[in-house]
C-alpha cells in the first residue's frame, strides 16, 4: 500500500535553519544538516531544504550544504531556493539532492520545467507554488492566485490553472504552500489542496498551516494530499515525527514506521 508521506521543511537563512511567521520575523533553530539527520532518524519520510537567502541574494543554493546532507541522509531530500537555471539544477542533483524545487523561476520562465524534466527526469522536478486566497474572479476562477517572491508579488495567475500547466510542462510533483495559513498553525488550506490534487496526475504536497496532528489527518482525508509538509510543529512546538505518525496511524492514515529493522 502506498503510504502518505510526512515531509519536514527546513528554511535555511545564511546557513542556519530559521522558522518564520508569514515570511516575517525569523528565529534561529539550528544547523540544517544536523537537524535533518535527526528528523530522518525520527521517521521523517523526506526532507526539504529551502534556501531563503539564496534567491534574494541572486546566488546559487549552498552546494556544500547539499553535499553534507547527501552524506548524512538515507531518505530523499529536495532543495529549493536560488535555482537560476538548468545548470544550477544539475549542480544540486550531482551534489546528491533527489529533487529540485522551482518556484518563482518557474513562473517567470516556465520552460525551465520542460528543460529540467528532459535533462533529469520529471521525478526530479518539483513545482513549489505559493498561493493566496483572493476570492473567485474571471482571472482566478479557483479563488486562489499564485504569488512569488515569498508572497510579495502577485502574478495574476490562477493556482489550479498554473498547476495543470506546470505538470504539462514537466513538473513531477507539486508542493502547494498556502500563504494565508503558513506559520499560523490553524490547519492547511483543504479546499485548494483538494482541487489541485484532483486536477493533476502527479503527487501533491500540502504545505502551510500545520499546528496539530488533526490538521494532517484533515489534509490527507479531505485535501487529498499525498504528502504533508511540517516545519514549526517539529522545530519549535515539541512534536516528534514518530508522535505525529502515531497520531496519523491511530486515525487510520497509512504511514511508514512502527517496525524495527534489525541491526545485527
Amino acid at each position, binding site marked *: *500500500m*502506498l*503510504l502518505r*508521506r510526512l515531509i519536514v521543511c527546513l528554511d535555511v537563512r545564511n546557513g542556519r535553519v530559521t522558522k518564520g511567521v508569514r515570511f516575517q520575523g525569523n528565529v534561529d533553530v539550528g544547523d540544517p544538516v544536523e537537524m535533518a539527520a535527526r528528523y*530522518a532518524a525520527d521517521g521523517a*519520510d523526506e526532507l526539504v531544504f529551502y534556501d531563503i537567502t539564496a534567491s534574494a541574494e541572486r546566488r546559487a543554493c549552498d552546494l556544500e550544504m547539499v553535499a553534507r546532507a*547527501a*552524506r548524512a541522509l*538515507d*531518505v*530523499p531530500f529536495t532543495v529549493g531556493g536560488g535555482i537560476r537555471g538548468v545548470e544550477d539544477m544539475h549542480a544540486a*542533483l*550531482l*551534489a*546528491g539532492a*533527489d529533487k529540485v524545487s522551482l518556484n518563482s523561476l518557474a513562473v517567470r520562465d516556465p520552460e525551465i520545467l520542460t528543460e529540467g524534466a528532459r535533462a533529469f*527526469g*520529471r*521525478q526530479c522536478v518539483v513545482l513549489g507554488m505559493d498561493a493566496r486566497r483572493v476570492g473567485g474572479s474571471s482571472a482566478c476562477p479557483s479563488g486562489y492566485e499564485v504569488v512569488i517572491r515569498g508572497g510579495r508579488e502577485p502574478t495574476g495567475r490562477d493556482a489550479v490553472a498554473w498547476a495543470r500547466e506546470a505538470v504539462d510542462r514537466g513538473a*513531477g*510533483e507539486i508542493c502547494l504552500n498556502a500563504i494565508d495559513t503558513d506559520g499560523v498553525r490553524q490547519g492547511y488550506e483543504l479546499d485548494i489542496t483538494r482541487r489541485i490534487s484532483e486536477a493533476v*496526475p*502527479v*503527487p501533491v504536497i500540502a504545505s502551510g498551516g500545520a499546528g496539530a496532528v488533526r490538521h494532517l489527518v484533515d489534509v490527507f482525508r479531505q485535501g487529498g494530499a*499525498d*504528502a504533508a509538509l511540517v516545519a514549526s510543529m517539529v522545530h519549535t512546538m515539541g512534536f516528534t515525527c514518530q508522535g505525529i505518525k502515531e497520531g496519523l496511524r491511530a486515525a487510520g492514515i497509512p504511514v*511508514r*514506521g512502527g*517496525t*524495527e*529493522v*534489525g*541491526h*545485527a
Partner: protein
Amino acid sequence: MVTILDYGAGNLTSVRLAFERLGAEPRVIARAEEWGGGRIVFPGVGSAGSGMAGLRARGFDALLRRAAAEGTPILGICLGMQLLLEGSEEDGGVEGLALLPGRCKRFDSAKAPGAKVPHMGWNTVGQGDRPHALWAGVPDNEAFYFVHSFFAPGNGAAAGWTDYCGERFAAAVAGGSIFATQFHPERSGAAGARVLRNFLAWEVR
C-alpha cells in the same frame, strides 16, 4: 570490494554515499575493463532505451552476463533491475539482458482511478514465503522508497511484491547471484541500508 557501474543513466551520488555510510569503499567505473572483480552494483534512473544503449557502449552488457555466469553477486536497482529482465515496453520496446525472466509494462492509471504515475513514495514490500538472504533482519511488509513508471510482473523470479495502480508487481527479483530491487535501498532509511549491508555480506551458494 564493491563496484558501481556508471553508464550514464542518472546520478550515482546517493548510491555511492549509501555504501560509504556502511563503511564500504565503492569504486565507480565507466568502462567494463576497469572492473577488478568483486560485487557489482547496477543502479540507474532514466529510460530503458537509453539505458541499454549506455550499457552496450561501455561493455557493461557483456560484463554483467559474465559476472552472472561466474556467480558474482550483482545488485540491480530501479532501471538496473528492469534491464536485467527480458525487456520493456518502454521507448517502443527494448530488449533487456534477459538474465532473469519478465517484461516491464507501464502503469495504467485507468486501472485505478486517482492513482498517480509515476509511482512515487514509500510503499510496503511483501517478502513471500521463500525469504531471500537480502531480506535478513528486514520485517515483512516494511516500506521502501519507489520512483518509477514501468514495472515488472510478479512472476517466478519475484523476491518481493508491492501493490500499486491495480497491479501486484515485483518490488524485487532474484535468481542465482542476482538480487535486484525496483525500489531505492539507498533512499529507504534503515530498512534500505539493511538490504545494502546484506548484499555486502551475501555468500552466494
